[in-house]
């Protein structure tokens, strides 16, 4: 097995990557975007603390400034300048100084301009412009400066075994002389003949490195990496991982050298790696413990895990433990050079990156003990770094996602520009009813708050007030007006809040629709699906004070979470869908189908969560009925309220709907033809989607969304109801496989969307 006597082995130089140079292009634009975001955050926090918290204005302003600075710091570090490899402490201090300098310039210019007689708002605008170059240059050249070092040479004493190792155990050391030899011996006792132990020593002052070299002389399976100085646990692991990949190890185990991780647990870790890409030795799953830790460390660790789990959306229970086994393919999938944390945040970051890369993660219980010899390396600076790393990782992931979905944002922006532009144009022209519009300066985009938007604003403002037998507001489901009310609390008008909600939700819906449709269709068809959803002729409703965009987002997210097995998130989305519109409850159909399909794969905990996802929408609906019953004495108030509009659900509803359609022209309801045409179009698209292999459960849900409202005796608004039937867009995406047809549909849809937006006032949606 050994190729050469150990005594003939010699240290070899190894070049390892270090800091990469920072990207330059687009910095200024990103800086401006972050600045605008920080401004919004500042105002929002101030408003919440001052208006609702009752804080004095100076205290609220100070807190708002602090939150805004932290917000800007995190965004600028991870997105604007991408300087995530530097130390948080240094960068944060420098950024704070630069921010204060910027504030000083701002106040100075403001003072000068006001003395010169400039109006307050205009003077502040100029002052902000004057301060921006100062903060930008300060941030770029000082706060987030990056070094150009790209490689560093370390010396490695390689193992003396034949061929690539099966397992490599990476042991970072710094002043671990007392623990090293017993640890290596204990590992040799549990590892196989083709397994390697790699000691990564950071130039320990107590001679740990030399001891490792001496041990290696008699142990061909022991490798030693000498690094020039102490540069953090994370860097040591990364260098160890890179070397393991170079050697060709199949599994890479990381653990501490101080016996806080028991070497006897390594075989269990390796066994679990047969069915997982990442195995985490966990203190916080049943059977695991951290008895050796002092209570303060235990609390810190628990709180850190809970915090990281909540912010990063991870399901791993022990995120700060460092006893893990990585599969080679997984380490190759993640960007090791991009890992920025050097202390304990490294454990969180690697697990997060690996989860993002689609790792199958298993947790096995371990007992964590306090170190046998030597001193703990834990410090306040390491804890702070770990604390700051978590939101930074979330922001970085968000930034990466934004870059990945940039094309969706472009289609969203284009389609919304058509709708908003058309609405604004007819308001300026006063067409078709000049007297209806308020002035543009008073209420721009008033058109988009018309029709049901008025009702949602009423519910947001005053809640439900049922007057039996009359047009009443219980027909308008509560979650959307509740969200409008929340935004109103931040200073937006109800209509503006509703518009912001609807348009942002539509962007979220498009992204979720894209990800969901990719699971059914090929990439090109999925992209077309999103484009047609954005340009759909009746899609102007997605930009009105209507809940259709939030429902579409909730339904698409619910479906996506279900497909990805994130049942708790799916349950939340389903409950939201049911509280946004009654049709949202139909999301239960595809969820049930998916749960039945995967019932054998679901483990105990997941089975309970999946059942919750199935029940969430109906339970949310029942809770709302219960609320109505308590409030107005009628659990079906939402349905009875529609009587005033001449709609009620009955078996002969479809006959009544057909009769009404037949006499539409006589009744002066010509727009019913539009709704009936859209209804037929939706059914055709659903059939196309079925042909494109969209799951039958989604087709059924879509069919219910489109056809069930007809049982209330009218085609009225069916064009709008069908908008949330996701497979309709998939059917269109499938249909337009030929390029000429695709182009024709895009141009035609865009024109129809613009025209429909301009004529909102003629016929209700």
């Amino acid at each position, binding site marked *: 097995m050994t190729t050469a006597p150990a005594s003939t082995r010699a240290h070899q130089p190894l070049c390892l990557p270090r800091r990469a140079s920072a990207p330059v292009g687009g910095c200024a634009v990103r800086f401006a975007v972050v600045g605008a975001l920080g401004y919004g955050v500042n105002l929002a926090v101030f408003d919440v603390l001052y208006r609702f918290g009752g804080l004095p204005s100076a205290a609220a302003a100070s807190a708002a400034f602090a939150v805004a600075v932290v917000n800007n710091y995190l965004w600028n570090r991870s997105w604007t300048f991408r300087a995530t490899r530097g130390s948080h402490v240094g960068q944060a201090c420098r950024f704070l100084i630069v921010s204060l300098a910027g504030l000083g310039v701002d106040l100075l210019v403001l003072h000068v301009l006001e003395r010169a007689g400039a109006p307050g708002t205009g003077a502040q605008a100029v002052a902000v412009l004057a301060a921006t170059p100062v903060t930008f240059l300060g941030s770029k050249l000082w706060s987030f400066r990056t070094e150009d070092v790209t490689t560093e040479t370390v010396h490695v004493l390689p193992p003396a075994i034949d061929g690539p190792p099966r397992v490599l155990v990476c042991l970072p050391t710094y002043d671990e002389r007392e623990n090293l030899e017993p640890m290596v011996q204990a590992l040799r006792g549990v590892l196989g003949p083709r397994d390697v132990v790699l000691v990564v020593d950071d130039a320990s002052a107590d001679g740990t490195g030399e001891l490792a070299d001496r041990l290696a002389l008699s142990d061909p399976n022991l490798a030693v990496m000498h690094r020039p100085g102490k540069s953090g646990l994370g860097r040591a692991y990364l260098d160890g991982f890179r070397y393991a990949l170079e050697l060709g190890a199949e599994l890479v185990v990381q653990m501490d050298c101080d016996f806080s991780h028991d070497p006897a647990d390594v075989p269990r870790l390796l066994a679990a790696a047969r069915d997982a890409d990442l195995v985490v030795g966990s203190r916080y799953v049943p059977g695991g413990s951290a008895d050796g830790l002092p209570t303060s460390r235990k609390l810190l660790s628990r709180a850190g895990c809970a915090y990281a789990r909540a912010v990063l959306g991870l399901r791993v229970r022990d995120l700060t433990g460092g006893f893990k086994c990585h599969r080679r393919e997984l380490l190759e999938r993640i960007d090791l050079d991009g890992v920025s944390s050097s202390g304990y945040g490294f454990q969180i970051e690697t697990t997060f990156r690996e989860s993002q890369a689609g790792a199958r993660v298993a947790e096995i219980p371990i007992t964590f003990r306090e170190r046998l010899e030597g001193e703990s390396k834990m410090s306040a600076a390491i804890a702070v770094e770990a604390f700051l790393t978590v939101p930074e990782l979330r922001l970085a992931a968000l930034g990466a996602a934004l870059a990945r979905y940039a094309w969706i944002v472009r289609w969203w922006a284009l389609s919304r520009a058509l709708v908003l532009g058309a609405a604004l144009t007819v308001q300026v022209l006063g067409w078709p009813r000049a007297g209806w519009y308020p002035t543009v300066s008073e209420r721009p985009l008033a058109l988009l708050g018309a029709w049901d938007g008025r009702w949602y604003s009423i519910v947001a403002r*005053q*809640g439900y007030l*049922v*007057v039996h037998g009359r047009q009443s507001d219980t027909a308008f489901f509560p979650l959307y*007006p509740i969200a409008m009310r929340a935004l109103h609390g931040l200073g937006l008008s109800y209509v503006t809040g509703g518009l912001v909600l609807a348009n942002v939700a539509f962007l979220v819906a498009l992204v979720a629709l894209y990800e969901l449709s990719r699971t059914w269709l090929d990439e090109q068809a999925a992209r077309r699906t999103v484009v047609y959803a954005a340009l759909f002729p009746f899609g102007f409703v997605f930009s009105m004070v209507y809940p259709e965009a939030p429902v579409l987002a909730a339904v698409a997210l619910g479906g996506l979470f279900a497909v990805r097995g994130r049942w708790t998130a799916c349950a939340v989305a389903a409950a939201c869908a049911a509280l946004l519109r009654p049709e949202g409850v139909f999301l239960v159909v595809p969820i049930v189908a998916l749960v039945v399909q995967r019932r054998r794969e679901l483990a105990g905990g997941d089975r*309970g969560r999946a059942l919750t996802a199935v029940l969430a929408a109906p*339970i949310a609906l029942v*809770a709302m009925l219960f*609320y109505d019953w308590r409030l107005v004495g009628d659990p079906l108030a939402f349905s009875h309220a529609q009587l005033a509009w001449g709609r009620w659900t009955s078996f002969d509803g479809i006959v009544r709907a057909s009769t009404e359609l037949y006499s539409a022209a006589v009744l002066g309801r010509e727009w019913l033809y539009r709704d009936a045409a859209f209804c037929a179009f939706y059914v055709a698209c659903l059939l196309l989607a079925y042909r494109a292999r969209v799951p039958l459960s989604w087709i059924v849900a879509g069919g219910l969304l489109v056809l069930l409202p007809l049982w209330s005796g009218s085609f009225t608004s069916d064009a709008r109801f069908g908008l949330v039937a996701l497979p309709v867009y998939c059917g269109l995406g499938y249909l337009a496989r030929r390029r000429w047809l695709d182009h024709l549909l895009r141009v035609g849809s865009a024109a129809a969307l613009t025209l429909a937006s301009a004529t909102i006032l003629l016929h209700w949606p």
Partner: protein
Amino acid sequence: MRPLARALVAGAAVFAAVLVVLQVGLARPTAAERIAARAVSILDHTRERGSVIEIGTRRVTSTCTVTRTGAARIQLDDGTVIVAKGTRVLETYRLGERRTLALHAAADLPAAELVLSGSHALYARELVDRLAQRAVSPRPVEYRGRPAYALRLRSRPPAVELILDRRTLRPLAAEYRSADLRATSRLIAARRREHGC
């Protein structure tokens, strides 16, 4: 069983969470608004046969019916007939004369007679408008020894107030006040199968 039990517990949590969101997130109508909403419902489901109107020293009895077109036809015992839909007077004439009397926008007398004759459609319409403006405030009063609410139906002059039985919320009386005129009426409820408006 354990997954089912977990799901049921989580379902109960969803139920509770939704109730909390609705309770905290939605504004709730005031007691006054709830009374007014119930009063509209009562007005929609009951009718008045007419009323006894007192305008200064003059006392007239009115009879109120609903025409086939849904308008209220009010006939006073002095022979005056007023036809109105909601708050809009369509025509007014004297019995036997078949001559439409001149209508003035600010005609106080026919307006008072219309308002005091007991048309529930008129009262309900005014009350719904007040509710939409969130401007209802029933005032506890006593009417002929009975506990009652006085509910103001208009914010601008002429002031119109409806007196409702505090227990049943049935209208008992109405009051009309303008700069030149002050009038009251006692409403006469229609019995079952009786005509009324």
